[in-house]
């Protein structure tokens, strides 16, 4: 299976390529991709240099153009696609049908991957995108069990990539407006979720309170480490229950299921984390590379040290395990 690794900066890109990534994915420094954060991402020139660097190591480069084109401003996305093709992207990762149609018509030779943001969760949907746009690979949403993936893989005519490590969306990706409900900025339209521009921390009665827009997302007593207020990972009150209503602040880690995923028909494992620094990327990629190449009995020891890097140091198999639902 291929290991698909994140890069938010040219330095992280080189780190990932050196550490054994089969492919590195990245985006331009604007709203055309779903990690549109200050200080992240690539200029056209940086992407060209990164692709050249990757080629020398036999590593592929995937360019994410995985937000939805803002009506009346489609040219920004069309230009990004043109530039990514021109500098030699091995694949474009797309979510918007309009953009998929444009790429399929304008660059018929260009390899097209379906982003997780397209929310393709069943065989009929996959085959639609294969037939309509010639999609070669689909990144599945984190809503499926391994058994669901295996069943889907048998019925589709394209490659399957899944998330294996890193941040975890509890909601079906590409179909969530929670962030914009609180802040006006969304993954689909602006490439951001729970953006730092709308985050505030304040002290209140010995607690540290984290806020997103006008809303309290969490409260941390002094003895508890404070986390970033990602909306769906906050603590809320529902009737008499208080707690993590949607998802605990845990990271996804299904590297213990490598063999099951391979048998299910998965061809590529994706690491989340374009917002992470190069040290994190280097460590995670190197370790997962070793784990992929290791014998199953040697994997647990390799993977144990990765847990220390995970958000809240707790991990979950998420939807890959049935009881998560």
């Amino acid at each position, binding site marked *: 299976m291929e290991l698909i690794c994140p890069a938010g900066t040219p330095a992280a890109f080189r780190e990932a390529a050196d550490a054994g990534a089969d492919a590195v994915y990245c985006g331009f420094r604007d709203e055309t991709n779903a990690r549109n954060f200050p200080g992240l991402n690539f200029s056209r020139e940086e992407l060209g240099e990164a692709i050249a660097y990757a080629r020398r190591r036999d590593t592929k480069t995937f360019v994410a153009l995985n937000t939805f*084109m803002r*009506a009346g401003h489609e040219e920004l996305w069309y230009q990004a696609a043109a530039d990514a093709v021109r500098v030699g992207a091995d694949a474009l990762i797309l979510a918007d049908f309009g953009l998929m149609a444009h790429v399929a018509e304008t660059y018929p030779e260009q390899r097209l991957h379906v982003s997780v943001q397209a929310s393709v969760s*069943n065989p009929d*949907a996959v085959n639609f995108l294969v037939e309509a746009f010639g999609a070669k690979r689909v990144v599945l949403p984190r809503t499926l069990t391994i058994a*669901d993936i295996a069943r889907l893989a048998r019925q589709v005519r394209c490659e399957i990539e899944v998330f294996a490590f890193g941040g975890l969306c509890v909601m079906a990706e590409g179909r969530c407006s929670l962030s*914009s409900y609180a802040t*006006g900025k969304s993954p689909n339209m602006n490439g951001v979720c729970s953006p730092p521009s709308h985050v505030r921390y304040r002290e209140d009665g010995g607690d540290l309170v984290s806020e997103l827009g006008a809303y309290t997302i969490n409260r941390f007593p002094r003895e508890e480490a404070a986390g970033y207020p990602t909306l769906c990972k906050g603590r*809320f009150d529902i009737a008499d229950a208080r707690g993590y209503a949607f998802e605990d602040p845990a990271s996804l880690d299904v590297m213990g299921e490598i063999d099951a995923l391979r048998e299910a028909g998965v061809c590529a494992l994706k690491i989340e984390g374009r917002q992470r620094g190069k040290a994190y990327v280097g460590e995670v990629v190197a370790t997962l590379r070793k784990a992929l190449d290791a014998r199953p009995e040697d994997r647990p020891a390799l993977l144990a040290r990765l847990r220390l890097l995970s958000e809240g140091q707790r991990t979950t198999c998420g939807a890959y395990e049935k009881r*998560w639902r």
Partner: protein
Amino acid sequence: MDARKPTLSLGPVLYLWDGPKWRDFYCRIADEAPVSHVVIGETVCSKRLHFTEPFLVDAIDRLESAGKQVILSTLALVTLERESHYVRALVADSPYVVEANDLSALALLEGRAHAVGPLVNVYNAATARLLARRGATSICLPPELPASSIDAIVSQTPGIAFEVLAFGRMPLAISARCAHARAKGHIKDNCQFVCGEDPDGLPVKTLDRQSFLALNGVQTVSFTCQALLTELHELAFQGVQRFRLSPQDCDMVAVARLYEDVMAGRMDAEDALQRLRQAYPAAPLSNGFHHGREGAAWIARARNIAHGAT
């Protein structure tokens, strides 16, 4: 400019209502509500289908007899094999127009006239035109879209009847995991249909007791209620053809009449807003998405007056 006057449509009941309540609701809509189109059928969770299925045929008959155009809804999230089977059978057998709420239904409906629901990501005219070429005849745009996007899409996509969510809690997210069941000590696979205890959604408050969201099974909806009333004339001027009312647990006939009165120029929008707050006191009103702001915001305004009676 399309000279056709916009009409009202009723979206599917997103919540789990017991069968008799659901049936009685549609009987009253058929008899009394000034809506031209009614989208009907389970949209949120495939586990709920058996609650309303025994009443579906009668409800549709009643609506058709009353002259309503019936559109069958489909599931918003299709992951299980039985869910795929359900959508395939519904698309294959339906004598009615079907509304696609996920990509599987969209795929299966190619080549025949169909509707596209607000849960399919249509953010630009390129996408809308693509869907039109595949057979879509109407598109209800996602609630997240600002007015500028609606205007651009509608003006650049001839041949599609565009619809905008004008009333109801906004669908914000859907998950394979059921937060509603979990809040009541269950998991999805053994949920005991506890979402049926909350026919208008289960409120989610922040730790500082701010009303924030509401749970509806695997779906998360806004706590606030989208209310586009002062915006109706401008949207009609831009060519929007239908305004969708999403059922809440309140007098939806009264809600529909308020919208009808505003559209017909019989009632001032500001008066209608006051009455709307009385008709649905459970949630504050919001229109932030439409004005390019956070969705929960309420933007009071008067600048529609220029288009007053178009």
